């Protein structure tokens, strides 16, 4: 049965218990380096993230939701993530997403991937499969992936900088057309072969993720 907007809201809710709250998606390193210091710089960070790592994640999620072999997508995600720290984070969050998804929308597709990757598949792949199990479309999955790609750092920056939460949420609202565009492109790409999926990445995010993973004191896990 085809699920509707309410189901997508449940999946995309920042309170969906899949571990995201402990991660800043690179925002903590960017705050420390002075690259994020106010709403305008948060907007630039989120826009950059959305059109690079966000597009790649949204396409992986859309492809998984469309029924593409999740193990092939997991491999494709590995190939698209050059930082070992980010691969570890993606698998850890994938495992946490899997637990929440199997409790909320159980299904054989999720069970099979959980059995094949007990320590976690890449999070966007699991997110896409969760969307499929919930009866959502590939475009829905791409929207959820695009949204969480920017909502995570925005929430983290509220905690890190004491940034006005209204300003942070306004940044997200202004990014909505970008999210729509990224989701549309991701869904379109997901109709093609796995090797042609977007492979956009942000080198600075990869470099700072490696540095952040070695910090002795930090607020966020990534």
């Amino acid at each position, binding site marked *: 049965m085809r699920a509707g907007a309410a189901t997508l809201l449940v999946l995309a809710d920042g309170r969906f218990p899949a571990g995201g709250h402990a991660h800043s998606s690179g925002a903590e390193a960017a705050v420390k380096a002075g690259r994020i210091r106010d709403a305008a710089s948060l907007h630039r960070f989120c826009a950059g993230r959305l059109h690079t790592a966000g597009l790649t994640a949204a396409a992986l999620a859309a492809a998984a939701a469309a029924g593409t072999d999740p193990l092939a997508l997991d491999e494709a995600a590995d190939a698209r993530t050059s930082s070992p720290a980010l691969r570890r984070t993606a698998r850890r969050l994938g495992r946490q997403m899997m637990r929440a998804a199997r409790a909320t929308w159980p299904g054989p597709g999720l069970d099979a991937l959980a059995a094949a990757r007990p320590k976690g598949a890449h999070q966007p792949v699991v997110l896409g499969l969760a969307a499929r199990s919930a009866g959502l479309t590939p475009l829905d999955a791409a929207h959820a992936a695009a949204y969480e790609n920017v909502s995570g750092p925005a929430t983290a920056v509220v905690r890190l900088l004491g940034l006005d939460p209204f300003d942070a949420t306004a940044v997200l609202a202004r990014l909505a057309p970008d999210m729509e565009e990224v989701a549309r492109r991701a869904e379109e790409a997901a109709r093609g072969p796995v090797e042609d999926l977007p492979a956009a990445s942000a080198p600075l995010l990869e470099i700072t993720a490696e540095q952040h993973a070695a910090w002795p004191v*930090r607020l966020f896990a990534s």
Partner: protein
Amino acid sequence: MHLDHSTTYPERHSASAVRADGSRRALRVGLGGPVGSGKTATVAALCRALRDRLSLAVVTNDIYTREDAAFLLREAVLPPERITAVETGACPHTAIRDDISANLEAVEDLEDEVGPLDLVLVESGGDNLTATFSKGLVDEQIFVIDVAGGDDIPRKGGPGVSTADLLIVNKTDLAPFVGSDLEGMARDARQQRGELPVSFQSLRGEPGVEPVADWVRARLADWTGAADAPRPEPERAAAHAGHQA
């Protein structure tokens, strides 16, 4: 949409009492409470008191460092492979209550890697008086406050003080120096907690952590007593061998 039953499947995501192979999993005890009340010191003392007879592991939830895990490692209360630190993204209460997935994974990984375990202690990051553990994560919870944090804390109540399975009022040796009224604290605690137990503790002298260790042993006896079949002795002995380090 595929939805199977109205009840979720605890074995897939939460604190199911049995392992995948049907045996009863370790008892999970949470320790929460304000910053500096002595949670880590109590965990360390419990490990020393219980490690010779039980197969133990600890999960810590630090706020922004891995200090607590580092302390337990430095004190060598357990071999390092039995201690796991969970990072909480500046929200320790979220990690033990609203989104318990990282903690559940830490507990399950410990069972897989160093198990079978009898007991897992899950220590929360220091937080406020409203922080409690999800029942999806722990079976029993201990709330630790101390006499120096203000003797009005039991009167103020809150979910931790009022509902924890055991309330520890720690650092009683400091009471004369900070002017805390222990009898008043006991009276207020009784008012808030009814029949639920309260333990006044000082780790600086005898009997130290022993009354709390007894409480944990009793909960464990209840837990294992409810199991269909106790674990055979040889397997237990093997599980203990790792503790002598």
